[in-house]
């Protein structure tokens, strides 16, 4: 020490400072050792996680075709504006709600919903902020990429429904999975997350698993603002399988036209091949436009339209063919007759019952529409004699009716390949309830049940399935839309990363038809009666087509008690049928809500379908029928 100063221990003090400096540097060195050597791998992984990101490449869904290859549903590429959950910099997107809503012309509330949703998501997950982005939207996002790095433009296949309202109930639509659905285990285990597009309603929902593709992804390196810097690898998506349905678009269009031409424009027409259960058409009016759900959920106008659909008293969202339950009226007499024959209450030889112009139960007289004497079964069908069936029902008793219900599966779903099918309600459903409530099941209830009123409400699809079996030796097939799912090839090679195996094509797996026990004679009596309805001076004589014998049955189902059945409470008009009567190729059901007589409204609508069918098939018998005839 040059500057010598005993009193202050100067040399020592300089030494203390020097040691302090070394201690500080050593502390830094120790900390470095901890971060780099001890925890190095941990931080390396953290760094990798924040720079590597998987960006999904959404797969297109399979298209849906009719039986002749006409396209019903397709996918087309569209641009979406997506919002990414960026964890890096504090982006308080809440301040940007108005900017987004204005810049992209989306509903402000929708933006708020999206933000709330994405905040609950993992980092880097994305949600669609606007589908079907226009050139203006894309330009807006690009122009604000520095301001709003959390917005991105993604190419995404979007579902297109070119037929608009046509077939909407059968096709269904797609949309983002709802929060309620996400809580269900069956969706959870598939790894769905908010924003996942799933089928909602119709075939889109029922066959979602096959229609949906497997998303691919791009593995990329991003910078701190989430902008892609480098692409590491790309796994291509696998498209969904194409679905060939049993639908005949021409018949479907006719069915919808005919419904639209009725006074109330409400009802359903179902067309089925009675020989295998293939559904050729299923119309339900009023209908909705599926595109509104696909494209409209983010726009104010679209949301208004969706709300209007839900609130509409006419219930356009509901598929009357499988979800509507209507009193079957006189159409109920067909399965009832088959049941009576099967139970031996009547026989082919001794089928006569008194009409009596009605029946007296206690102090109440219930009328028949005419006075038919003591008709045999086929005549009772042709003329739709209520008096006959009052007495038949009383003879069968409610137990007999219930046995018939079970025979025709009215207590079950038909198994049609659509979601949310309802089950019919019959005396089987009501008997225990009534007995509990009123102490006993009264005869008058049996009488009403005998003509398809009061305790009987059935779904049109269950009615058609039952009736269509009459002409085909009692074989009751499961109605279905699936004809074939096309196979799709694998993506990539096996043992490689991102390999997606091929998916096999398949056709509808026909369950064994349920056989209604019927002798040839019993069948003949039934068909004869139904043939007479159209061709033998029956209730639907007006729709007779020369050289094409339709077997049918009309129904006029009361909605309100007599005298009040006017205006909105008019009767439902039914017509159930198959043709040709003795070698059925096609079965048609028509139900028009609140219009009046079945013969006047439902039967003509069904006739229109037959005419279209004939125009396509030609006036002569189908070629395969000729071939079969030739063999004989």
């Amino acid at each position, binding site marked *: 020490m040059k500057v010598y100063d005993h009193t202050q221990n100067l040399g020592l003090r*300089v030494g203390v400072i020097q040691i302090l*400096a070394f201690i500080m540097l050593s502390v830094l060195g120790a*900390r470095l050792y901890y971060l*780099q050597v001890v925890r190095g791998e941990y*931080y*390396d992984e*953290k760094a990798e996680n924040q720079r590597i990101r998987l960006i999904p490449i959404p797969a297109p869904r399979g298209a849906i075709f009719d039986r002749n290859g006409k396209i019903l549903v397709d996918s087309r590429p569209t641009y979406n504006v997506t919002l990414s959950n960026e964890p*890096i910099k504090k982006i308080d997107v809440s301040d940007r709600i108005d900017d987004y809503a204005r810049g992209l012309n989306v509903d402000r509330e929708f933006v708020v919903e999206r933000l709330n949703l994405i905040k609950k998501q993992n980092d880097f997950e994305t949600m669609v902020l606007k589908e079907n982005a226009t050139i203006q939207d894309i330009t807006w996002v690009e122009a604000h990429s520095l301001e709003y790095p959390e917005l991105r433009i993604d190419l995404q296949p979007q579902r297109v429904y070119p037929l608009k309202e046509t077939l909407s109930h059968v096709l269904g639509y797609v949309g983002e999975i709802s929060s309620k659905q996400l809580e269900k285990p069956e969706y959870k285990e598939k790894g769905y997350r908010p924003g996942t597009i799933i089928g909602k309603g119709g075939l889109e929902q029922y066959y979602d698993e096959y229609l949906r593709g497997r998303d691919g992804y791009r593995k990329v390196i*991003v*910078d701190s603002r989430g902008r892609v810097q480098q692409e590491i690898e790309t796994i291509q998506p696998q498209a969904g399988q194409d679905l060939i349905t049993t639908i005949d678009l021409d018949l479907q269009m006719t069915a919808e036209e005919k419904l639209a031409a009725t006074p109330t424009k409400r009802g359903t027409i179902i067309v089925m091949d009675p020989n295998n259960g293939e559904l050729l058409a299923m119309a339900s009016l009023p209908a909705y436009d599926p595109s509104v759900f696909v494209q409209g959920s983010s726009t104010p106008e679209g949301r208004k339209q969706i709300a209007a659909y839900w609130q509409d008293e006419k219930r356009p969202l509901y598929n009357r063919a499988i979800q509507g339950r209507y009193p079957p009226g006189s159409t109920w007499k067909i399965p009832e007759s088959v049941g009576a024959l099967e139970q031996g209450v009547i026989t082919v030889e001794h089928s006569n019952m008194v009409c009596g112009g009605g029946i007296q139960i206690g102090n109440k007289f219930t009328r028949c529409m005419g006075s038919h004497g003591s008709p045999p079964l086929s005549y009772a069908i042709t003329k739709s004699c209520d008096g006959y069936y009052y007495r038949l029902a009383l003879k069968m008793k409610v137990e007999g009716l219930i046995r018939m219900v079970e025979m025709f599966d009215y207590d079950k779903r038909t198994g049609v390949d659509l979601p949310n099918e309802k089950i019919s309600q019959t005396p089987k459903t009501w008997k225990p309830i009534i007995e509990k409530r009123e102490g006993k099941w009264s005869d008058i209830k049996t009488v009403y049940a005998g003509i398809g009123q009061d305790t009987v409400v059935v779904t049109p699809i269950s009615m058609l399935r039952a009736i269509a079996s009459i002409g085909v030796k009692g074989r009751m097939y499961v109605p279905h839309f699936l004809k074939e799912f096309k196979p799709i090839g694998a993506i990539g090679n096996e043992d490689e990363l991102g390999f997606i195996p091929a998916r096999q094509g398949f056709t509808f797996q026909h369950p064994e038809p349920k056989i209604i026990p019927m002798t040839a004679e019993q069948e003949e009596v039934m068909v004869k009666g139904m043939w007479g309805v159209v061709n033998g001076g029956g209730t639907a004589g007006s729709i007779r087509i020369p050289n094409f014998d339709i077997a049918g049955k009309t129904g006029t189902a009361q909605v309100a008690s007599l005298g009040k059945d006017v205006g909105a409470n008019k009767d439902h008009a039914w017509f159930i049928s198959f043709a040709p009567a003795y070698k059925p190729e096609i079965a048609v059901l028509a139900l028009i809500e609140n219009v009046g007589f079945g013969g006047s409204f439902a039967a003509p609508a069904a006739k229109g379908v037959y005419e279209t069918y004939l125009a396509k098939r030609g006036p002569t018998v189908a070629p395969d029928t000729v071939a079969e005839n030739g063999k004989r």
Partner: protein
Amino acid sequence: MVAIIERRSFRDFDLLTSLLAVAIVFFGVWQIYNAQPEMNLWSKQIIGLGIALVAFFLVGFSDYRRIVDAAPVFYGVGLILLLLVLIPGLGVKINGQTAWLRLPVIGQFQPSEFVKIPVVLMLAKYFGARKSGPLRLREFMIGCGILAAPVGLIMLEPDAGQAMTYFPLLAVVFFLSGIKVRYVVITIIAGIVLAPAAYWVGVRTGKIKGYQQERINVILDPESADPRGYAYHTIQSMITVGKGGLTGIKGDTETSQAKLKFLPEPHSDFIFAVTAENTGFVGCISLLLAYAVLLSRLVSGAREAPDRSGMLVIMAIAGGMTFQIFMNIGMVLGFLPVIGVPLPLMSAGLSAILSTFIAIGFVISVKMRRFVN
């Protein structure tokens, strides 16, 4: 001044210290390039080094005693510069701080970096003239006064980080001016007790702002801090350092933390994180050793200083540098809060490198005159 350079001076020139400082700067230039390869910051830093070396030689070959004598003049000029910064129109606002002065010809510079030197000189002049014996209250008050003026002005910018770097200068001078050990002990104990208390009161009264609290919280508990918020800098810095591992990332510069912009301010305040990522533990320890050797050279120079003021100049500069290194790297390693203090000789910035080399110039000047008494 060049005229007074004598032949003998060259012989006493401390080449090792000078070369070590220049080597650290070049190491830094490499890291600046790693941090921002597409910007020409690294070449600017080399130009800065050139300018700094000119100043360094000018100071180094002058007689520090004359400069210490003129300390009040420099001190006055320094205060004027700090005042000018605060005049709207002259001062340049960056990141909410008005710390920069834009002057014609010279361009933009940061007076608070330079004013440390006049403060050191002023302290050296006053305390270098004192007689032996323990520090007196009057001396203590004057020392505080010398520091208070520039620190007060810097706090008005406001630049708490720079202001903090001034305190070790005074602390070292007091310590070497015979302050009684018991006062040192009392100060340390008071600091340990009062700092948390002051923090608590500050939080309660709202004087310490939310973001400042968060910067403290992330140090105490980095795992539960909000990685998107004010903890961002600290967390990303730790990731960057840790990722470097033992020997640093090799060749994978395309995905470096700085390149992908995860690491903020990679060329200036967080240059050490870039160093850690690129050269790993080995490179970092080498750098710390270089600093240790440099500081040892300074301290040994102080021991051989011909007079008290020379010794104080060197020790204050060494103390200030050590403190700044510790503050900066401590921040990068995530155990000290984020405060904008550059890493001496490494961080990009003309003002910082220039002032550091002027400071080392004084050391050289003192050392050169160790035999002239």
